[in-house]
């Protein structure tokens, strides 16, 4: 996971080029690919980027990120359908709830490290899952269906695929840039210091727990942003979004793309979603293939796709 250093200015310029390339590809993609598929990829890419902020830059493995994604998706769907809020407010509501949940869960989970942190987040996510199963507003096994996409700011009709696509693209790029900015800020540097050597960071006078908590809340909020947007794209919020297998999927996307790389989660999400799309008819084989990818990544491919490319180019991506 160590990032080899080329000159910072050079790296920055290179990453900027890659980012512009990515933005252009995403903007042009609907010309060749089914737009709803691309929107799904972008929602999950943002979700994976948010997750990567924790595992890649603070070294905290959360095995319960589906709770933020799924909870936000429920709230946003409920806000749009039952309260009749405009899409931007529905998304905001989902994101805020996920952020608040992130604060509560984060305060508990950062009390333990490493493996315990993973188990605690997983257990709390399971609790949220049972809550969503029983709470009346989530619709239980049915979920919230036929969520209206509505009019953005009361003006732009989002039932048109093009305007929805542009909204998702904007949200994704904004979220991505925000994470990039956080990672490269002084705050992000402290996070990396904590990842590399926590006791050293403590001895330098940093309030490590507070940094971890802020990172956790940011990650939860961004995962919520992805979940809220997803609910509007598919007009559906369901138990799948909040189940532990969703938490596992986001781990897999990030691992496959490259832990601690900027672009890795995006590539990982694209690969996994594509795979699910093609293997959908094969039922449980999807799970088997995902498991095999997990095993291969851990045993032989720990840098992930983008990590390997960056290593070959000697430039962190």
């Amino acid at each position, binding site marked *: 996971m160590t990032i080899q250093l080329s000159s910072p200015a050079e790296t920055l310029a290179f990453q900027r080029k890659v980012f512009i390339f990515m933005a252009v590809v995403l903007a042009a993609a609907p010309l060749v690919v089914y737009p709803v598929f691309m929107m799904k990829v972008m929602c999950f890419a943002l979700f994976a980027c948010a997750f990567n902020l924790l595992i890649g830059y603070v070294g905290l493995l959360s095995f319960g990120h589906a709770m933020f994604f799924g909870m936000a998706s429920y709230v946003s769907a409920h806000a749009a359908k039952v309260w009749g809020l405009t899409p931007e407010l529905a998304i905001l509501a989902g994101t805020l709830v996920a952020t608040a949940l992130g604060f509560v869960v984060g305060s508990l989970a950062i009390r333990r490290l490493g*493996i315990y942190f993973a188990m605690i987040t997983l257990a*709390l996510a399971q609790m949220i899952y049972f809550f969503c199963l029983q709470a009346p507003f989530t619709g239980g096994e049915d979920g919230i269906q036929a969520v209206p996409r509505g009019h953005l700011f009361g003006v732009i009709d989002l039932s048109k695929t093009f305007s929805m696509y542009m909204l998702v693209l904007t949200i994704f790029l904004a979220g991505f840039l925000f994470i990039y900015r956080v990672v490269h800020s002084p705050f992000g540097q402290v996070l990396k210091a904590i990842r590399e050597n926590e006791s050293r960071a403590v001895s330098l006078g940093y309030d490590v727990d507070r940094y971890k908590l802020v990172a956790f809340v940011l990650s939860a909020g961004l995962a919520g942003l992805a979940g809220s947007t997803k609910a509007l794209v598919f007009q559906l919020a369901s138990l799948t979004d909040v189940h532990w297998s969703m938490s596992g999927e986001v781990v897999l996307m990030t691992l496959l793309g490259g832990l601690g790389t900027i672009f890795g989660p995006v590539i990982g999400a694209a690969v996994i979603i594509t795979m699910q799309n093609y293997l959908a008819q094969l039922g449980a084989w999807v799970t*088997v293939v995902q498991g095999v990818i997990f*095993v291969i990544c851990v045993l032989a491919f720990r840098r992930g796709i983008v990590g390997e490319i960056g290593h070959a180019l000697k430039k962190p991506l």
Partner: protein
Amino acid sequence: MDIFGIPSQALFGQLLIGLINGSFYALMSLGLAVIFGLLNIINFTHGAQYMMGAFVAYLLLNRAGIGYWPSLLIAPLIVGATGVVIERLMLSKLYKLDHLYGLLLTFGLALIIQGLFRNEFGSSGLPYVIPEELRGAQNLGFMFLPNYRAWVIVVSLVVCLGTWYVIEKTKLGAYLRAATENPSLVQSFGVNVPRMITLTYGFGVALAAFAGVMAAPIYQVSPQMGADLIIVVFAVVVIGGMGSILGAIVTGFGLGIIEGLTKVFYPEASSTVIFIIMAIVLLIRPAGLFGTQK
């Protein structure tokens, strides 16, 4: 007869179910704790291996005509052997890395195993008949106690305490505990530590499979039976702390009983009560009830 306004039949019935669940929590978290002690790996495959134990027993009965009693021994041996293979081929490559990779690898393995079984046997539960010797029930006056359930509780207790005795009181256990503290020193005394690690993993896995065989007649045998259980067991492990074997056993049974009682007094919370207790324990004693913070 009513206790706190609850019919005693219902109260003792749920207490019994709580004790049964607690038996499985204890057996499972014991296996996790033994593996974690020596390998520093949280075995996410534990739930899948529990499921494998139940399936091996099911297949032995329905395809080979081998009954419950031999299965109690054969199934853990078979599943334990697969555990040994997994440790040798995969886990042993990860000991020098961050412990999180062990978690990720075993999670992947759990997905593979559960997916394969779902392809082969479908998602619906398969029944496993209670062995003839353990059918029927005892009338205790205040409730009926099915023989098989009493058997599960007693055997779990015996196996748990037996494991505790071996680890805490015998020479073999002393080697194990020493290797947990300082593997290289123990190795320099001529103990084959890598083999000990392999066998420990195999034993932990066999415990899970044993729990699976015990569970087969109570719950339906299905590919998902271990997936949700393992998450609850993780919470049990966080509550108990993994430092002590006895702690894992006490926490397992205790939480099973609390869960059973919640079903009587406030059923809505019965699926979440263990997680809520975990949150409270984290607030008051982050290291767990029996753990020590490293």
